[in-house]
């Protein structure tokens, strides 16, 4: 408020005069003549900024270490740039292809595929795309791996023919003489490895118009050699793909007949010969690598997953799938996530309820014992809290299994026949028991701190007014402890729907949660997109439940103490 002090310390008579003044002429003014409102706002803003600066480290910390990574991870559930980035030309041409028809794409698409595959293979990206698409269509993974291995041979037909025609075509020095600008060639001649970065490749003027396809391939080749491999471009011989592009240009419309620049003789000779070269049919060549390239389904999948963003992961997460006809249900024998989401919710509710049932009496005793004993008991509550989660869960295994402590005791007592032991683990019972135990402190602690604030005199007052024990509890005590139940329930419920270690160890097949699948996709199948989609749905479900809770119970009624 320091900035506002002059206004406040102004003499009272002057202030009165101004107030009277203001009533007639407009806004109240501060001592320096600015309107008081503005001056006050400025002072408050300054104060707010200072407060913000104080919490800024925490805010930035939370933003950077918590919100940003989560947002980044969740973003993966829609991101699908890999397809169009790895196969840029193919996906561009594929737009025109009718995916609902019965024809596989024609030769131009396969030619583009050859280009894309060639560079993807050099950059070692083709297998990555294969794994990505294998999530959608089984077999694509090996299709891409196999094709990557053989795609280099495909264009060598042209390379060999050019080289057989004239040894001129063998070295990049000759290629550079007509592909590169004179400035670049001169700069390269002076360049030594010790100088650092190579001079960036420049196309010779006019080449791009005369040899369009070759220029594109050569630029990509040059970029790769210079920036990825970091080899001397001048000494690196062109890849097979540059030769097949040259063949395409020389047999195309433009021609080199009017060209007079460097290497004109060789180019013209090659142009004459090129029309008689043995040609490659890329469609057939790909089919020869793997017959799946002529499988309609492969191309449909490629087309469906061409866009940069996809709803595919989310659809998968709700047991649907994308196809050329639109969204459809997955086959019956692959639907799993609906069941798991439902089970996670139901079992989390069951765990929360059993935590309330078990935790309430404990918290009540804790709150009503003398401090010394209460503290001792509190340590007992907290003790398992300090033990490793894995140790506690494994301990339950020893307790609950069929040859375990509980079953042995029951058999010894004669309650259960020895060949009819109870199945307490590797099913839902196991998960509920173990997780109730693990999450119990999260219920007891808020309950305990809320109950501590409830005056025992209220109960006594109720009883002295004639209430029975039950009425006094139910009408007087219980309503006051509800905020504790609310806080405990939210904690336990939210923690339990995200649990996966305990269900994994004791849950068998019927007691596992959706988080187990998320963990599988993150760490084992590497399908992070699907994992992120499942996680996003889980997050949305929690927020929705939280919202409903706020509407029904009111979040203000939740207290931690």
């Amino acid at each position, binding site marked *: 408020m320091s900035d506002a002090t002059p206004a406040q310390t102004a003499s009272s008579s002057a202030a009165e005069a101004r107030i009277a003044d203001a009533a007639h002429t407009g806004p109240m003014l501060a001592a320096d003549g600015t309107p008081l409102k503005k001056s006050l706002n400025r002072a408050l803003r300054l104060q707010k900024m200072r407060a913000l600066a104080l919490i800024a480290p925490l805010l930035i910390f939370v933003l950077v270490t918590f919100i940003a990574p989560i947002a*980044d991870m969740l973003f993966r559930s829609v991101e699908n740039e890999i397809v169009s980035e790895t196969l840029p030309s193919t996906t561009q041409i594929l737009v025109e292809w009718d995916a609902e028809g019965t024809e596989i794409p024609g030769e131009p698409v396969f030619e583009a595929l050859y280009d894309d595959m060639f560079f993807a293979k050099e950059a070692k990206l083709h297998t990555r795309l294969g794994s990505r698409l294998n999530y959608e269509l089984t077999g694509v*993974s*090996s299709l891409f791996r196999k094709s990557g291995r053989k795609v280099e041979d495909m264009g060598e037909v042209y390379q060999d023919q050019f080289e057989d025609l004239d040894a001129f075509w063998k070295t990049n020095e000759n290629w550079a003489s007509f592909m590169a600008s004179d400035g670049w060639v001169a700069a390269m001649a002076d360049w030594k490895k010790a100088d650092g970065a190579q001079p960036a490749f420049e196309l010779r003027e006019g080449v791009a118009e005369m040899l369009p396809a070759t220029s594109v391939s050569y630029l990509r080749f040059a970029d790769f050699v210079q920036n990825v491999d970091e080899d001397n471009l001048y000494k690196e011989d062109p890849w097979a793909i540059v030769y097949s592009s040259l063949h395409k240009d020389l047999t195309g419309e433009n021609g080199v007949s009017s060209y007079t620049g460097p290497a004109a003789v060789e180019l013209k000779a090659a142009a004459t010969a090129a029309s008689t070269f043995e040609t490659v049919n890329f469609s057939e060549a790909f089919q020869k690598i793997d017959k799946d390239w002529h499988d309609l389904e492969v191309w449909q999948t490629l087309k469906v997953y061409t866009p940069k963003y996809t709803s595919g992961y989310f659809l998968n997460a709700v047991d649907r799938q994308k196809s050329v006809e639109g969204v459809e249900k997955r086959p019956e*024998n692959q639907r799993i996530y609906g069941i798991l989401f439902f089970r996670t919710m139901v079992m989390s509710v069951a765990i929360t309820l059993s935590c309330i049932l078990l935790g309430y009496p404990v918290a009540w005793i804790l709150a009503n014992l003398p401090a010394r004993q209460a503290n001792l008991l509190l340590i007992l509550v907290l003790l398992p809290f300090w033990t490793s989660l894995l140790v506690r869960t494994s301990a339950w295994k020893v307790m609950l*299994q069929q040859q375990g402590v509980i079953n042995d005791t029951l058999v010894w007592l004669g309650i259960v026949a020895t060949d009819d032991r109870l199945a307490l683990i590797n099913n839902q019972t196991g998960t509920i028991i173990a997780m109730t135990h693990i999450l119990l402190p999260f219920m007891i602690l808020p309950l305990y701190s809320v109950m501590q604030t409830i005056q025992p005199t209220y109960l006594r007052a109720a009883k002295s007014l004639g209430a029975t024990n039950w009425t006094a509890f139910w009408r007087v005590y219980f309503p006051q402890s509800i905020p504790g139940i609310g806080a405990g329930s939210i904690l336990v419920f939210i923690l339990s729907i995200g649990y996966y270690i305990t269900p994994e160890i004791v849950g068998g097949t019927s007691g596992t949660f959706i988080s187990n699948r998320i963990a599988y996709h993150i760490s084992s199948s590497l399908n992070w997109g699907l994992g992120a989609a499942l996680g996003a749905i889980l997050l949305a479900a929690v927020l929705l439940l939280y919202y409903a809770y706020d509407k029904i119970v009111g979040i203000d009624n939740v207290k931690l103490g």
Partner: protein
Amino acid sequence: MNLTKTLLATTALTVAAGMAHSEDMTIVSWGGAYSKSQQNAYHTPYTDKTGVKIINDESSAEAVSKLRAMNEAGNVTWDVVDVVAADALRLCDEGLAMEIDPDTMLADAPDGTKASEDFGDLLVGDCFIPQIVYSTTVGYRTDLIGDTAPTDICAIFDTEAYPGKRSLEKRPINNMEWALLCDGVAKGDVYDVLETDEGQQKALDKLATIKDDVIWWSAGADTPQLLADGEVVMGSTYNGRLFSLIAEQDQPVAMLWDAQVFDLDGWIIPTGLSEERQARALDYIMFATDTQRLADQSKWISYGPARKSSAPLVGKHAELGIEMAPHMPTDPENAKNTFLYNYEFWADYRDDIDAKFQAWLVK
């Protein structure tokens, strides 16, 4: 996105700076008895020879996802990583593992045989450097199994002759193959059948006949523990785990080697290392995968060395003093009927069949 990357990189950098000195090398493995065998056979001799200090990281179980995260953050803190061959193939496909040329980067056998020939078929994919052959096989309780000990893998499915629970891994791999074998499919046709929807359903139907009798495991230690507690009468796990249960812990358990599934474990070198670190990793690999070193490892654990030339050098267990050869999955007596994990097949079909398998499990 960039913000995240910067952040991850800084974090990784800080952690790395705290952990690793420039002369140190971080080697990732599985921990437990396995890491111990590597420590004795490879790490200690290597440190003695070169002075490079080796830091053990026991993260192999999460290696694939962690490597991907490190790679995205642009800061790989691991130098050499021990993974199973299927994961190596996946890492290679994702561009996270470096391609290896066996003949120039790995040592020749003592008789001059090139590494590519010495390792033979075990060089799966372009990035994987094989180290050991292990197998997934079945162990049974000799005291609970009844009068006739099982000799056939189909004992798993025979609940009449061998009543009681059995433990199987909670994933389709191996189980689907065994189910088809015991459903009358010839060994050579298993993967052809498994490629089809009908074949997959057939395998699941066969597994359904014992679904109520199966405890599904996900950690390698589960089956040994379940066997030791008498919770199951038989169960599948890695042969090394069963070896330690039988030989080291003296439990009444025996092994059923029939239709054991061979699998490989070995090294990869992550991509994105500095030249200096990569050279050091390659130097370590050259040393640690030579004939003698691989044979040395089998003194500590009952996994077969991946080189043909190492087999004759396999000796006695370093602490128990028992002859190790008969406990190797590759021993002729044990390897009468074996299966080699089909990497290409599972790389393609893993996602699809796993979805079906898991859906089948939860129903």
